[in-house]
């Protein structure tokens, strides 16, 4: 049984709570926020989980100390949270873009991450794109440029997302480049208010001349799509690899599981599914 605490009572924390409670061999020992009357803490209390409004201190001071803390706060708070966890020998799965730990996309490098005391989940766009980028690179080892364009619905983009767009772009670019050994990575994000809200879509583009074998690339994409779907049920190819002029493009769509958040919020679902997958393997 894995004993886990969820730190941060926003949308990500609440959705993770539901996912952890549904998972086998995972026990949520505490759920922490900063405001006693927050919607998130009320939600967790209703689900029968011990709650605290004293953030990381509340989690570590309690008698039921966890094995793992999932940090759903913000990059600015993560260093402090991580320092305290390390003092108590508690491992951390980091949902913020703080990049202090080893970066992880389960379909690509989970085994490489399991020994680390801080595992960083990069970003929603990172989780959606890295499996496909990996397939491109696997089928085309010389590939040195790739582009990732994610579009998320306005309804799923909270204030944190909106205030951290530049940081999201830069840190996702760096994570893809370093994890996959691709020299130049360009990340783009769109937020659309279209009604009904669109399900998250991520397009991957490359120079056609860097992708000599379309059929090998297609098979690699199909294989990784399936292994990603084993932990992200709504992960589906929405545009088959296609050459248009000097570029090739394919697209995946992520439909959320609809646990705490609506099905369109695939962007929030995928990073939580990835964290749960890591938790299961720890």
């Amino acid at each position, binding site marked *: 049984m894995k004993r886990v605490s969820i730190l941060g009572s926003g949308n990500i924390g609440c959705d993770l709570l539901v996912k952890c409670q549904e998972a086998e061999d995972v026990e949520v020992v505490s759920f922490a926020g900063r405001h006693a009357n927050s919607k998130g803490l009320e939600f967790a209390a209703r689900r029968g989980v011990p709650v605290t409004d004293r953030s990381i201190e509340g989690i570590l001071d309690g008698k039921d100390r966890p094995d793992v803390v999932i940090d759903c706060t913000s990059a600015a708070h993560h260093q402090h949270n991580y320092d305290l966890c390390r003092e108590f020998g508690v491992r951390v799965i980091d949902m913020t873009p703080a990049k202090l730990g080893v970066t992880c996309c389960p379909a690509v490098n989970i085994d490489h991450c399991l020994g680390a005391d801080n595992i960083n989940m990069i970003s929603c766009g990172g989780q959606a794109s890295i499996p496909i980028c990996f397939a491109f690179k696997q089928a085309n080892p010389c590939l040195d440029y790739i582009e990732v364009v994610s579009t998320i619905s306005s309804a799923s983009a909270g204030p944190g997302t*909106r205030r951290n767009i*530049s940081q999201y772009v830069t840190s996702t670019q760096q994570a893809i480049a370093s994890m996959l050994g691709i020299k130049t990575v360009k990340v783009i994000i769109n937020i659309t208010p279209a009604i009904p809200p669109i399900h998250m879509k991520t397009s991957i583009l490359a120079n056609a001349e860097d992708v000599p074998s379309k059929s090998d690339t297609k098979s690699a994409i199909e294989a990784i799509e399936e292994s990603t779907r084993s932990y992200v049920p709504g992960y589906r190819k929405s545009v088959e690899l296609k050459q248009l002029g*000097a570029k090739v493009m394919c697209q995946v769509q992520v439909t959320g599981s609809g646990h705490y958040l609506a099905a369109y919020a695939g962007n929030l679902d995928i990073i939580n599914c990835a964290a749960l997958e890591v938790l299961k393997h720890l």
Partner: protein
Amino acid sequence: MTPPLLYDVTLRDGSHANQHGFTSEFCSTYIDSAYASGLRYIEIGHGNGLGGSSLHIGRLKDPGLWEVVAAKASKYKELRIGAHVIPGLATFEDVDVAIENGVNVFRIACHCTEADTTETYIDYAANRDQEVWGLLMMAHMIKPDHLAREAKKMESYGASRIVFLDSAGALTPSMVSNITHELREVLEVSVGFHAHNNLHAAVANSLSALTAGCQSIDACARGYGAGAGNLSLEAFVALLEKDGHATGLDVKQLMSLATLVENNFPLSLPKVDSLSTATGFHGVFSGFKPKILEAAAAYEVEAMDLIAVLGKSQVIAGQEDQIIATASKLAQQVDLP
């Protein structure tokens, strides 16, 4: 009516027309000639602004544009050089590079409903003592009072002027007038308008904006911009001058500027063809035109059908990949919204 500040977007919006192919040499000649005609605000760069150069939207062909910017910034002390900045395409690092090269007007732009994505970018540029404007794109997609609330947010973040963009050329003169009144009602800062000519209404809309109280107008020499093109700078100035409004610009010199564009880009001069009219009618981003033609050909679907579906599914600027996704679904005859 006070004559407006005329903001020249030729070297940025025109980049859509020639698939981001302006050369440094052309830009250098253009800026000299534009400055001589009295223009003091000139924007330059990729059609989608900083960070826009990509496979997704189109690669900027000449990497040497920054050198031109730097040279002109030091040559003309009165010249304000503008950059278009869309959060999600551009990063803070792109803003830094632009500042280093002499850009001093940052136009932070977002889809009309998403003003809060501009807060940190407006803040970033303003903290570096730059002139910062807020731009609301695809303004036809929401009601004027909603647009005014988004504009007010940008003002509160520190934008010194708010420009609303008719990115699809889908507005009519009465709509432009209503929006301008609504914005003027709530804003303390100045208001500007940016037209596209999809329904042949760039001149009528810009005049309507001025009459209703807009203080700046975006325009391009020879209307050289995305899709059906923008407001034609020389024709608009000629109209104002004939009506007795002193613009401070030299009409004759502006004609030479238009000729310069005509001579250099005879094959990509804007025209209001049936496709442009369709994008205007369906409210689809003007800059999509080449991508629509490319995707329609690749998937063997009708461009007109594609435009209608893109309009119905409310695809916004930046979603070039969705043109391809939509064409692929049309080809498979999958149910579409």
